[in-house]
Structure formats: C-alpha cells, structure tokens
C-alpha cells in the first residue's frame, strides 16, 4: 500500500499555479453577504402576498419602542413588479438604503420614506424605511459599516434587529436575536440524530429533523432541525444546527408572515438557497 500512498503524494505535490486569487473569493463572499443581509427574496414576498399583503412588513412583538411608529398603511400591497427604481439616476442602487462617505457621514437614500428611526447612546442609528415598494431595516454602525435587511426580519422590531446586527458585527453570534434576551440557543439542545430537547421554560410544539437547508446553513452531515417552540407564552420558530457539538438556534418570532412550521421551512429554504455568488441570504 505504501507505494500507492507515495505515488499519490508525488502526483499531488506537482500542482500548477492557481488560476484565482484569495482576494477574488473575498470579493465574491462580500457580495454574497450583502445579498444575505438584503434579505427576503421572492419566497418571502410570495408568502407575504399569500397572507394578504402589506401587513407582513410590520414585525410583531419586540420591546414596543418602535411598534407604533412602525405601523404603515397596509393598503398598497408590495408586489415583485414594483416600478423602476426612482433613484437610478442618482447613483443609488434600488435596494440601497444608507451610505457613509469617507468622513463617516451617513446619508439616507433620498427616495426612501423614513418610517421609524432609533439612535443608540453608544453610537449608530437604525432606520425603518420604505423604498421601491419594499420595507427595510438599515443600521449605520459606529464603525461606519452599513447593514440592511428587507422585512420581515425574524419577526424582530427595529431595535431588536439593530441590536442583533451589533452582536453579529462583534463576531459573537451568541444571543444575536436582540436585547430582549430571546436567544433560541438557550431553549433547546440538539443531539447527533438531529432530535431536539427543550430546556425548562421552553416547550416544543413540533420539530423536524434534517430539513435540508444546505451548506450555507450547516456543513453536510451536521445535525440540523426546525421547530416550533413556546416560551413565556410566545411562539417562535427555530432553525437549529450543531456547531462543534454546541447548539445554535436562530429564532423567528411567529408573525403574520410565517404562521406555521411549513411556512417557516419554505422561508428557510429560500433564505439558505445558494445564489449566483455561492452564498445565501440567510436568516440573520
């Protein structure tokens, strides 16, 4: 056998120069992440239309600080055939909400209609806007980075979503759902066979093992599951995966858009579908 192994080593040692640069993969990765953050593709829109229109844009629950202001007139149902972007001739992308210039000044797309705004004491401002027939959350962080997400956003309020971005941006995914303590990873555990167990205080209503959300959600073969859980009387849907044996659960508070586990599965499948850049939009 050693002769085969030696031969294999010798052959693979003679590699020609690579035809790509690592920087190219980073550029493609950035595009993929941007698409992921500018979330909610056609499936989310289809779900929204199916449940009756623009009510989808108003995320329920939350801390109440932005609820009242976040309400919008539900009469104009958003559709995928929205008119051409009114900002095209100003150099703004159709889904570009915020920009920062070299001096760190933040500007809002002039075509965007501000619905709500929240400034944080530690710096950074979050916006809830309507743009091109869609609604978005956008956050200008203290490090000049911009995060944008098309609604719905895991059923989160503007402040919850902005806090989640701040946690994600810090590189610490734990508890990224927001400041209200809603961290799905503390509600369930997942075992090697993708079975979920609830921790005290949480109740699993329904669960599905290995929903097949793809490589962007979990590495092939890793345990994954979806579940509907009830915590403190509130219903959440969870997308759960195991990372090095630790349970990572992404919560979505049930809202008018995603009302059943089937709808949550459809929503997750679209969010984690591989796009042209090899990435996906993801849930957060």
């Amino acid at each position, binding site marked *: *056998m050693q002769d*085969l*192994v030696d*031969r*294999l*080593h*010798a*052959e*693979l*040692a*003679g*590699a*020609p*120069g*690579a*035809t*790509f640069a*690592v*920087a*190219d*993969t*980073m550029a*493609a*990765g*950035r595009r*993929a*992440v941007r698409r*992921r953050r500018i979330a909610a593709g056609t499936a989310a829109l289809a779900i929204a239309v199916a449940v009756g229109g623009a009510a989808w844009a108003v995320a329920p629950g939350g801390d109440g600080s932005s609820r009242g202001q976040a309400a919008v007139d539900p009469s104009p149902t958003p559709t995928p055939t929205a008119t051409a972007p009114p900002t095209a001739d100003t150099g703004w992308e159709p889904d570009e909400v915020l920009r920062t210039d070299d001096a760190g000044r933040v500007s809002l797309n002039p075509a965007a209609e501000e619905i709500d705004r929240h400034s944080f004491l530690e710096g950074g401002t979050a916006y809830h806007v309507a743009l091109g027939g869609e609604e978005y959350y956008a956050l200008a962080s203290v*490090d000049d*980075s911009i995060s944008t997400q098309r609604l719905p956003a895991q059923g989160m309020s503007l402040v919850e979503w902005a806090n989640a971005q701040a946690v*994600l*941006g*810090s*590189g*610490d*995914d734990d508890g990224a759902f927001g400041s209200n303590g809603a961290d799905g990873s503390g509600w369930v555990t997942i075992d090697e066979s993708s079975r979920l167990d609830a921790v005290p205080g949480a109740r699993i209503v329904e669960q599905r093992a290995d929903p097949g959300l793809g*490589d*962007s959600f979990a*590495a*092939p*073969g*890793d345990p994954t599951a979806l579940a509907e859980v009830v915590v403190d009387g509130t219903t959440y849907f969870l997308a759960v995966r195991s*990372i*090095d044996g*630790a349970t*990572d659960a992404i919560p979505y508070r049930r809202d008018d858009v995603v009302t059943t586990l089937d709808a949550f599965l459809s929503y997750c499948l679209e969010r984690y579908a591989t796009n042209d*850049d*090899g*990435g*996906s939009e*993801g849930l957060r």
Partner: protein
Amino acid sequence: MKRAEREAAYVEFATSRRDQLRRIAYGMCGDWHRADDLVQTALVKLYVAWPRVAHGGAQDAYVRKILLNAAIDASRRPASRETPTDQLPETPAPADTSTEDRASLVAAMQLLPAQQRATVLLRHWLGLSVVETAAALGIAEGTVKSHTSRGLAALREVLTAADA
C-alpha cells in the same frame, strides 16, 4: 471583531489552505481548472460562514466538508458543469511531475466512486483518522474502512493492468 480583522483572518486562513484544498479538489476531479472552481466555491461559502465557523475554530473541517461535498455533487452530474464559451481557458503551467505519472494514479482515481476517492484522499494523503474521515464525509466509520479498502484495491488493480 471588526470586519477588517475578520477579513484579515479569513485571508490568512484561505491563503494558507489554498494549495492543500486545490490538491484535494484535483484528486477528486482530475482537472486543475475544475479543481480551482471547486476551491473558489468552497472559499466563498467559507467567507459567508466565517463569523460562526471561525468562532468555533472549525474552519478546516468546514471548508473541507464543503469542498468534498461540491466535488462529489459535481462528479454525479459532470455534463451540467460544461458551458460553451468563445474563449479558450487559460492553460495552467505544467506540473513538476511527468505527464505520464500524473495521468496514471489521479486518472485511475477518477474511475473510483466519489466517496471511495474521497476516503482514499483523506485517509492516505491528508492522513486523517477513520473517525475524522467519517466526520468529514458524514458517513459511518465502518463505511470509511470499506471504502478505503475497496478504493485502494481498485487502484492497485487499475495500475497493475496499466503497467502490464
């Protein structure tokens, strides 16, 4: 961690692993251009998943899984990967080993089922244990052993026939 720091960590990791990943991909597909495509796909997915993957220190295992999965998927539908083009692709520089030697073993490996190919590479080129190989491929340890044994036997048979 700020974005610039995360990206610096990603670039350092990707740069240090690129050649190893290319060799795994080449062993899986037998073509350096396709190998580069597979590695790029895997690295882009790694970039997207970097915050959670790096947080757990699982970068190597993650990118290897993605790469092998992509290679196995590609080997199941080779025709779908071919697209007409007006331009000839850039020709890679010749390898250090002779064309005859390169053709023999790597070409013979392409005759193996994809998972046998993967187990031979992981066990006998990367030096992973049976347990690590099973985890990388998402298969049972017994399956790793049988795939490796059959793969090596098949390779020896092919090479013996070619040398005769």
